[in-house]
């Protein structure tokens, strides 16, 4: 599926929930089931700045597509990362770099986050795009 197809699927899923407590329940479940990151990547170099809770993100390139793993000490943050990874994982690097992540607004996530969390979300998206561009550059250069 393309990035936008996945986004549309998520928007559809979220429209089925009654209220935001249910949506948070779902985000928390996603957070709990986020695949573990290799502990070696939970270091300063992989820490995303601008998040109040700690978030580590690692990207790897495989055939021009980017694989992300991540972790956080806060489970809601992990759930949000899980959503981002679901949308961007294994997509071509250039698609990631240019992706318009409209699902964040459409599911109402942004308005339901505190400003600090919203900033953190923006930092996460930015870092995923940076990683994609950087990793893409690497393959081309080699």
């Amino acid at each position, binding site marked *: 599926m393309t990035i936008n197809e996945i986004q549309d699927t998520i928007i559809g899923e979220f429209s089925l929930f009654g209220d*935001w407590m249910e949506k*948070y329940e779902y985000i*928390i479940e996603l957070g709990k089931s986020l695949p573990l990151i290799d502990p070696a990547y939970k270091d300063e170099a992989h820490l995303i700045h601008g998040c*109040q809770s700690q978030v580590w993100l690692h990207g790897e390139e495989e055939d021009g597509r980017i694989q992300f793993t991540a972790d956080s*000490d*806060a489970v*809601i943050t992990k759930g949000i990362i899980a959503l981002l990874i679901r949308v961007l994982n294994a997509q071509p690097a250039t698609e990631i770099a240019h992706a318009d992540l409209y699902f964040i607004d459409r599911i109402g996530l942004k308005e339901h986050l*505190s400003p600090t969390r919203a900033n953190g979300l923006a930092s996460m998206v930015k870092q995923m795009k940076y990683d994609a561009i950087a990793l893409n550059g690497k393959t081309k250069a080699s």
Partner: protein
Amino acid sequence: MAFREEIAVRSENRFDLESIRADFPILDRMVRGNPLVYLDNGASSQKPLQVIEAITEYYLGTHANVHRGVHTLSQEATDAFERARRTSQSFLNAGSAEEVIFTSGTTEAINLVANSFGLRFLGEGDEVLISGMEHHANIVPWQMICARTGATLNIIPVEDDGTISLEKYASLLTERTRIVSVVHVSNTLGTINPVGQMIRMAHERGIPVLLDGAQAVPHMKIDVRALDADFYVTSGHKMLGPTGTGLLYGKMEWLHKMEPYQGGGEMIERVTFEKTTYAPPPFKFEAGTPNIAGFIGLEAAMQYIQRIGYDAMRMQEEKILQYATERLSGIKGVRLIGTAPEKVSVISFIVDGAHPFDVGTILDQQGIAVRTGHHCTQPLMDRYCIPGTVRASFAFYNTIEEAEKLATSLERAISMLVA
């Protein structure tokens, strides 16, 4: 005991919670589909109509710059502004109105003292003594002035229950201690420090003491002369007043010895390009046009508190604190941080297996406003080896029902967050 009961009876007669809540229209707000439960009073209190109206009326009918014009409005504005200073004086029981300096808040007040006192009295090898539970506002200004003057910053350690040991405090008062600057009531733990004794012990050695009263004034009657504090600072916005207002009480003997910290209009006696002489206190510490409307609002806030009475406020807050403490400590996985015997109505806690931000987010979804994080006391968080806490801080306008709502919403949050 009999005395307490007597107060209870007397206060209950006067204390009409419903009419008090009607003075705070914001409390009727809905948040995310739920009635707002505002338990972040430690960060900033809500404002009663009386304060809002005082500010509005001032702007509608009286506003002009103060201490300047001969015209009527300026005179009226000056009178109102200086009346607010006299109200602040009696509110804190300062010896004279000139000992009350208007600042933008606690932070500016501490920066003022750190600079004006520090540059005059601190030198290489001197010591400043603060505690391990200080707000960053009572750490960073001292660090900055210590770096400039070569003085050292010493720290009174915090005990496990969130108190200060007077023995350890005594051992840190040395020949070289030039000032003690401690928090009267901890914003994170709620601890009421034994400041009367601490001041006496410092004074025995001739050391002046600054008290950070940002979290004390909203809850208890402050008598700076009975305390014998050398400096007492607080923020208006935590005590029903507007943002951008703060009080700095300083004993006149110190204020005379201190140099101004900022220069500009309003603070001078005579300016030439060669030399400027300063106005006497308080004006020499109030450069520039002050927050006139703010202090008129703050006066209304102080009058509101005086009308309700600290006894009655305290009674309601104690009831809620006791209820919430029992209720929350009975919830599995909840650990209270700060269990001093002498506390104001602040409860900090952590939940096993859940990040404070996550707990705060799920509480917010249920309409409950609490503070999460380090509460500008990072060294204190390090002391307890935690990233932060969830803090519920209650005001006299909160209810037992709201405390119960916090508890049930917390139970729901825990069931969602902790697998």
